[in-house]
């Protein structure tokens, strides 16, 4: 279902005379990005006290790659429109369906609607998948680093890796405030190391992501090295990307998706 997402092998465009920024991983479908589709909510699953997963039926969904996002639109009676970008949480092998995991943002008009009003059967508009930059086709070893709901696009990669039984190495370092706030806690396996910044289970230290967490992952890096994917708030992304660079990860092999 991802045949139309052909991989871009080399960039043919302008090459800057400076060090090359991480190129897009795939070519994206312009048609998918420009067409609004109707998505019908089919299921709501609570993940944590502040986050829930929303499952949609999207009959004409073209398919996506792990890490891609979409734009979602809600429309009020008077024509007022609110649109937001959200990362896709589900793996690609789920024809006609996608899942989003949304934090309930304080005062958020869109996440507020999802968490307090939405019910199965409700319809919203969306367009996508968008952007090939943060996509992971499952080809290269992946080092995933996320915090809070920044784990969402990374979970799509973990699920894809598992569903396809991929042999390429994949590791996830994920930070949450507490065990209760750790999204997808029950789904993680040996590939994942959770960190807790406020409160941890007994015997597990509490603290911010540090060099000591990142260094072992770079010490055990596979042949050809890691492709690093970082997702979270800007403060987390700045912190985590700096740790990766200091631990020796090449700067042009770090892809960052920041909230905003």
């Amino acid at each position, binding site marked *: 279902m991802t045949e139309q997402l052909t991989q871009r092998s080399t960039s043919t465009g302008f090459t800057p005379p400076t060090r090359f920024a991480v190129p897009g991983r795939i070519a994206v479908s*312009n048609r998918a990005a420009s067409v609004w589709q109707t998505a019908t909510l089919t299921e709501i699953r609570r993940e944590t006290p502040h986050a829930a997963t929303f499952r949609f039926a999207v009959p004409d969904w073209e398919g996506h790659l792990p890490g891609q996002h979409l734009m979602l639109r809600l429309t009020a009676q008077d024509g007022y429109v609110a649109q937001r970008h959200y990362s896709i949480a589900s793996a690609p092998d789920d024809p006609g369906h996608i899942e989003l995991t949304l934090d309930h943002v304080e005062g958020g008009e869109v996440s507020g609607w999802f968490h307090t009003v939405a019910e199965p059967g409700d319809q919203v508009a969306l367009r996508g998948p968008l*952007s090939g930059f943060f996509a992971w086709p499952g080809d290269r070893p992946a080092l995933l680093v996320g915090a809070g709901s920044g784990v969402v696009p990374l979970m799509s990669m973990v699920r894809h890796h598992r569903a396809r039984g991929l042999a390429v190495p994949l590791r996830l370092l994920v930070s949450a405030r507490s065990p209760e706030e750790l999204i997808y806690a029950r789904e993680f396996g040996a590939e994942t190391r959770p960190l807790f910044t406020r409160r941890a289970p007994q015997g597990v230290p509490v603290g911010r992501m540090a060099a000591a967490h990142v260094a072992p992952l770079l010490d055990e890096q596979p042949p050809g090295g890691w492709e690093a994917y970082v997702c979270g708030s800007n403060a987390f992304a700045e912190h985590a990307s700096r740790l990766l660079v200091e631990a020796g990860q090449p700067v042009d092999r770090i892809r960052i998706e920041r909230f905003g």
Partner: protein
Amino acid sequence: MNVTRGFTGRARVDNPGLPPGQYDAGDDWPVLSAEVTPELAPADWTFRLDGLVERPRTWDWEQAHALPGSAYEGDIHCVTSWSKFGMRFGGVSLDTFLEVVRPHESATHAVAYSHTGYTTNLPLADLTGGRAWIAWECDGRPLAPEHGGPARLLVPHLYFWKSAKWIAGLTLLDHDEPGFWEQNGYHARGNPWQEQRYSGD
């Protein structure tokens, strides 16, 4: 129009400065760069204009600051749908730099590139006539690294991914050449008033 059941949205504001589909981010200024924020000191910053110009030229920090200053006071609009009002940027108008290098008549577009290697394409007409700057100050302070400091391109009438952070130069061309996000499905021009977010909009 498909109305979303039970969706009211935030309080309506009558704001003629808000392009369609955008909301006012208030005091927030989200950061959305896709790469690692570079450690770039002003002393290491340079800005180059080349391509279809008579006299290609590179400016360093001091040479750029010796040019007559120019400010932009107004709004900025991000494709992720936030807008930010009443910003004040200080720097030098791009017209001032272009006067020095003298673009050829055949130049129609430019690729702006960053010290990180980020690129974005723009029609030359969007970069001239007092609508584009090289900016190093924001609200009276040096531009923060995460917002593109020491200096960024500023083209506030287009979506903000066109305003390349950590600007290193512009190459003038006689054709359009998609940049980083444009190769990733984003619109070639990015006019927020026409909601040109993605290719095909």
